[in-house]
């Protein structure tokens, strides 16, 4: 337990550093570029203001963003605002806090992605292990089709599915999270409606996940099936079922890392799927914000994406350290 605690503490320190760096990058990178965000706002909203008015607007904004302060103070102000959950106010929807926009869209993204990732992970790993174990035509068929599906950009599959199953053969509704006649509320009517709109984007994501996981699992399982402990077990006459169980447990370890990557890119992973299906998630909000140069919304969303990934990576490092004693021993410097 002592080792495990040291392992966890080390990870906490490392990821705090990463998080800080991500926040600094998110805050500082745009400032490296010549030009002033306030100028852009002025040219957008104050195009017909007179010189005096424009100057006034300019000063108000410069003060509001704290651009008249030293860089170090600006960063502290930014951190302070973050600590209060204050991500600024949208340019495109004046008066709407960025946090409010994210709060409305994030649940849609999570509800779309988490089931797709988990189901895709389980099915894909089972398929990959089976293909590696059986070999032959199953392997060839499953491998090539998995490789094709997983190498297809996920949004390409989404576009083709949308056209095929909602336009050419209208089985599913053509996009949106719910019908226009409905408003989001907790009623069976609304949930059924949302479920009908859910299938197509879900399908487009889960198929890609299955493919990607199957390709990875197959090569891991092939590697494990040739290892010494399997040969030894075989020579002892251990049944195939038990060997498969051993192999699956060992081969699944790196796949847990794969699950981490997927869960970490959760928020940022399906941006374009949401755009394709007009799904009311974070991706659609980001798309709108980029088109309208809504700078605070863009940086708020990139921050959320970054924090989600760092957090997921951290959790998975902890889980892996928990289930695989070799890793925490190596990390804690015992090997």
């Amino acid at each position, binding site marked *: 337990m002592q080792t495990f605690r040291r392992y966890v503490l080390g990870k906490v320190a490392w*990821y705090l*550093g990463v998080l800080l*760096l*991500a926040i600094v*990058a*998110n805050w500082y*990178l*745009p400032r*490296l*570029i010549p030009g002033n965000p306030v100028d852009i706002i002025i040219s957008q909203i104050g195009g017909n203001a007179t010189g005096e008015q424009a100057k006034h607007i300019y000063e108000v904004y410069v003060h509001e963003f704290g651009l008249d302060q030293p860089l170090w103070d600006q960063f502290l102000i930014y951190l302070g605002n973050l600590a209060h959950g204050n991500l600024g106010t949208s340019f495109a929807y004046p008066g709407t806090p960025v946090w409010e926009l994210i709060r409305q869209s994030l649940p849609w993204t999570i509800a779309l992605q988490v089931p797709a990732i988990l189901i*895709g992970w389980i099915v*894909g790993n089972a398929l990959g292990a089976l293909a590696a*174990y*059986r*070999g032959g035509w199953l*392997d060839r068929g499953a491998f090539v089709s998995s*490789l094709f599906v*997983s*190498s297809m*950009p996920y*949004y*390409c599959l989404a*576009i*083709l599915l*949308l056209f095929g199953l909602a*336009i*050419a053969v209208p089985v599913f509704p*053509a996009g949106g999270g719910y019908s226009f006649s409905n408003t989001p509320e907790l009623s069976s009517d609304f949930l059924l409606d949302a479920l009908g709109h859910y299938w197509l984007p879900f399908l487009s994501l889960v198929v890609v*996940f299955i493919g*990607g996981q199957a*390709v990875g699992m197959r*090569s*891991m399982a092939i*590697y494990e099936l*040739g*290892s010494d402990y399997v040969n030894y077990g075989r020579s002892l006459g251990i049944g195939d079922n038990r060997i498969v169980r051993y192999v699956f447990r*060992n081969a699944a370890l790196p796949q847990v890392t*794969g699950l981490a*990557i*997927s869960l970490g*890119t959760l928020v*940022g*992973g*399906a*941006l*374009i799927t949401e*755009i*394709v299906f007009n799904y009311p998630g974070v991706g659609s909000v980001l*798309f709108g914000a*980029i088109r309208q140069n809504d*700078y605070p919304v*863009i940086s708020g969303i*990139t921050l959320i*994406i*970054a924090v989600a*990934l*760092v957090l997921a990576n951290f959790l998975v490092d902890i889980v*892996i350290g928990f289930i695989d004693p*070799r*890793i925490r021993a190596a990390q804690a410097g015992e090997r």
Partner: protein
Amino acid sequence: MLSSFRHNTRFQVSVGILLAVLVFAIIGPFLPGRGDPNALPGKLFDPPSWTLWLGSDNFGHDVLTQLMYGTRTSLVIGIVAGGVAVLIGVAIGALSGFRGGLIDDVLSGFTNLLLAIPVFVILIILSDAVQNRSIFTMALVIGVTSWPWTARAVRAQSTSLRVREHVDVARLSGAGTARLILLEVLPYMASYISMAFVLQLAAAILAEAALSLLGLGPSNVVSLGIMLHWALLWESVRNGAWWAFVPPTLLLTVISFSLLLLQTSLNEVFNPRLRTGGATRRRAAQPTLVPAGAPVGIAPVEVEPVGGGPS
């Protein structure tokens, strides 16, 4: 070695497809009537006809002509970005693996840090901050953000290569670090580097497409992602104008599929024990470089057996 290239169907298929795409992108714009990608021979979503084989897009551009120029842009960005990424990745990975010690600690700490920060976020921020994006700034931005995977794989290789005898011999005859890395270490991982380049190329093409789809693509040119951006913005899918979005979608899929197939076949040629057959009868020699299921398609992930691999 050469005969295993010739007998590998996957290698032949992928190289064949890639050559066809290359010819389409290079020769296409020189064909008569395809000289100007900005010409407007059609109107809003004209369906395919004898004059416009693939119809017209929302502006009235000829989709086939756009497709030729778009493929060219995507390939150029992919090749430049992939090259930049491999160059940085190999330099940092080889140096840190070969030198070890403090240099290694600093460089691989930096690599791991970049791996932990979502690259796509940095891509969005950078692309959004650069107002006038040329093809080469796009390629550069993608290249300098995507090298850490290559660096990590190369570092692992050069750590094991630096203790080989031929390196010792060269060192005893007075070769310096640069010479040792260039002449004694890098040639021995040429296969690895070529596979890494193929993966980085595929990742860069997909990264460009994703950024362009979001509306952050290069200005004043057309790429496959930009075609999709306009097609989605003008609701071509819901209007049933399949000719505006199916061709770029299929082309992106085909390019990315054949690049990953090429990578797999290279891996099979270089690591013969990975070939298909009864899995139970063979020993896989090396952990493989496998494309990630990472949905953004940015980061090629190296799958390595955790802790239990042959060392």
